[in-house]
């Protein structure tokens, strides 16, 4: 067996009354890709954040090659041999590509307090070229590049100095095909060099494909470490959730007739540069899935239907003839929308769970024009509990919740509002299998109660498993439509996506 590279001894971390990591002891070996999996809120990211200096652990020690690692911040972590690539954007606007790559490490290019910008740019460009990203210019402002390219720059930033331990924290969900390929290349290189990758992902197939060993965390406790070759996704799900998970958590019906009643009609929807001449008819009790490659325009469709797109042409009409041209009209007419960008577009992140759930329903909660705190609390508690949100209480701030629990709050909000038409953009993005199952169950139950759902998703299995009808988009246009069928295959959809 290879030598232990990183040893974590009784790592413990609390956030208030939440015991995020409970005395976790774990070894990571040289030349290994070691996956950390677990439900949302299981402590995976907190564990790696403590290692890389984003958080400070309460007790315990990390030892790298026998030497203690105690990172004050990410850059300090880099100097101690550990680095992290995070899920969300980690580069800074207003700085050049080179400045981003060497942020916090300017001293390497500074003498007598003067920064040698030229040599920093030169070094950054050499690195970009070496990674095969020559089209990215070190001297450009980073704002010039799209999300995916900025992620690639982050990969360079986190790995150019060959850290002994590289943490890849749910990064793949934010990447397209090209980005994933580059990331996996870097992970493989790290492994081949005898260093170690700690890989966090909710995509269990990807985990099995990329990893050598897999450790499972549940409620901050290390449950087990298994060899990837000896397990399958069902074994992992069982370890994560603590009980047998149904093999298929999608809908099982295939021949239910969808109502003829059209509840929402979008005609000739065009948003310049995003979608073009898009038509859609949503029926009562129907789930329509919209899929395609990440940049195909599908995410804009949700906004366009909710009245949240700017420069939208075409019309969105409800069964009663109401035109949806703005968000207020949409909400007033029982339309709900959960954006893919949860933190920035769906939630008031610096506010409490209670306020987030109650926000669109204040008119319904108030009595005699007055809002009573007691009623708001009761309302929020009812729907937060209905979604099994893991929380200290509804007074807790959103920022303290894990990704999956944040999503539960978003859904709780719209269940509370009792909306009839629900637009869900990437509803299970970055969410563990158990919460996924809960969300699918909720969607199925809503459908049965006559609610209509538009589900925009980059996950083909989700589209096949949950939708009555699937619309595939390509280059901003509709490129294919499929009816729900047990015979429908992922390859059928892919053929229309690419």
């Amino acid at each position, binding site marked *: 067996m290879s030598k232990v590279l990183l040893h974590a001894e009784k790592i413990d971390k609390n956030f208030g009354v939440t015991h995020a990591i409970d005395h976790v002891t774990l070894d990571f070996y040289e030349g290994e890709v070691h996956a950390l999996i677990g439900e949302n809120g299981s402590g995976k990211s907190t564990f790696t954040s403590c290692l890389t*200096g*984003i958080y400070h652990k309460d007790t315990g020690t990390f030892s790298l090659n026998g030497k203690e690692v105690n990172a*004050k*911040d*990410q*850059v*300090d972590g880099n100097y101690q041999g550990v680095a992290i690539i995070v899920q969300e954007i*980690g*580069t*800074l*606007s*207003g*700085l050049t590509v080179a*400045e981003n790559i060497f*942020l*916090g490490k*300017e*001293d390497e290019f*500074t003498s007598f*307090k*003067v*920064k*040698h*910008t030229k040599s920093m740019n030169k070094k950054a460009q050499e690195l970009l070229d070496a990674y095969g990203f020559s089209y990215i210019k070190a001297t450009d*402002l980073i*704002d*010039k590049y799209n999300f995916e390219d900025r992620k690639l720059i982050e990969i360079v930033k986190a790995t150019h100095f060959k850290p002994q331990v590289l943490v890849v924290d749910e990064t793949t969900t934010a990447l397209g095909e090209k980005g994933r390929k580059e990331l996996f290349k870097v992970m493989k290189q790290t492994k081949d060099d005898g260093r170690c990758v700690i890989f966090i992902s909710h995509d269990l197939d990807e985990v099995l494909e990329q990893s050598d060993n897999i450790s499972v965390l549940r409620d901050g406790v290390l449950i087990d470490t298994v060899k990837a070759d000896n397990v399958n996704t069902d074994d992992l799900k069982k370890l994560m959730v603590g009980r047998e998970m149904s093999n298929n958590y999608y809908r099982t019906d295939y021949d239910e007739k969808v109502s003829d009643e059209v509840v929402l009609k979008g005609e000739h929807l065009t948003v310049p540069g995003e979608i073009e001449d898009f038509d859609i008819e949503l029926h009562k009790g129907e789930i329509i899935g919209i899929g395609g490659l990440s940049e195909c325009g599908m995410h804009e469709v949700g906004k366009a239907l909710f009245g*949240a797109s*700017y*420069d939208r042409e075409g019309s969105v009409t409800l069964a009663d003839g109401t035109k949806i041209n703005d968000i207020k009209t949409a909400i007033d007419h029982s339309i709900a929308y959960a954006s893919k960008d949860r933190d920035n577009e769906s939630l008031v992140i610096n506010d409490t769970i209670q306020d987030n759930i109650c926000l669109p329903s204040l008119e319904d909660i108030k009595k005699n024009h007055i809002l009573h705190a007691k009623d708001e609390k009761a309302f929020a508690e009812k729907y937060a509990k209905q979604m099994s949100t893991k929380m200290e209480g509804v007074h807790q701030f959103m920022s303290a919740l894990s990704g999956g629990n944040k999503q539960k709050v978003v859904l709780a909000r719209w269940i509370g509002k009792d909306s009839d038409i629900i637009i869900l953009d990437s509803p299970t993005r970055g969410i563990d299998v158990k919460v996924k199952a809960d969300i699918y169950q909720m969607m199925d139950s809503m459908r049965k109660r006559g609610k209509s759902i538009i589900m925009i998703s980059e996950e083909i299995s989700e589209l096949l498993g949950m939708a009555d009808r699937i619309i595939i988009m390509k280059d901003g246009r509709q490129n294919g439509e499929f009816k729900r069928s047990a015979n429908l295959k992922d390859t059928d959809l892919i053929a229309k996506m690419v």
Partner: protein
Amino acid sequence: MSKFQEFKQSHWYGLAMLAVLTFVFWAFFKMLAPQTFGDLGKLQTYLKTALYYAVGGCGLYFICVMGPFDMSVGANIVLSSVLAVNMSERFGYAGLLIAPMISGVLVGLLNGLVYIKLRISSLIVTAGLSLVYEALSIFATNGKEAILAPQYRAFGDYPGNLVLALAAFFLCGFILKYTKIGTYTYAIGSNEVVAKNMGVNVDKYKVVAFVLCGFFVGVEAILTISYGTSMTSASNLASMSRNFPPLMGTFFGLAFKKYGHPVIAIVVGEFIIQLLFQGFVALGAPTTVQNIVTGVVLLAIVTMTIKPVKAVVVK
């Protein structure tokens, strides 16, 4: 990307825009008031005023890029100016130059420390402290007008003012481009949390930004007192009106930041504002009309330059 699109993203485009804007405003008023506006001599006078506002604008730029704000610039100018007069009487030019720089730095340091320690809005902190600085200016002058002796007025006219202002501009540009302070100023303004995670001592660099602002305002005070030759102490926030002229240049700097020449934009921006003011004076327009049009034009230029992304949240 087409050649034109590439050009539009280059720093040359920013410089060209500034040059075109300057020419357009000059030509506009020159046509309307050919006798009383815009000959070479007058342009030099406009530049003279623009220079000292631009020096203060450079200081404010460090703070505004990060996100906070400094409402004590006016009070700092008043206090630093009266101290410059006092110290010039004792130490000659050394007093005139060093006293306002030190006073500006101390004002900035106090602003920064109180801001990070109390963790309250920079607007409130600096407005509150302005009252203190104004009071200090009264103590320093016993309430009398401070007049700079004629033998110490070299920085009130060319070439002294130009030399001092250019030194300040180069220093500002150098700090922004060739020191960690510049990088961290932009990093904190972009995302404080990420900057912190990258090891940037956010509080320290916020204080540094206030200190730099104070320093450049101190230099502005040297130019102001040298040009105006006298300064009256202020009270009851009477100094507030002095906050805005340098701020206008800062707006230009922020708007043209993406083209990589904020300092040039601050200087040219102040010059454009002077063209506007002086143009209206030449036309005989009432001050109120001048203010309205100048405000509208300033907003129009900044909006046109920034082209805010649709749906983006602006605070």
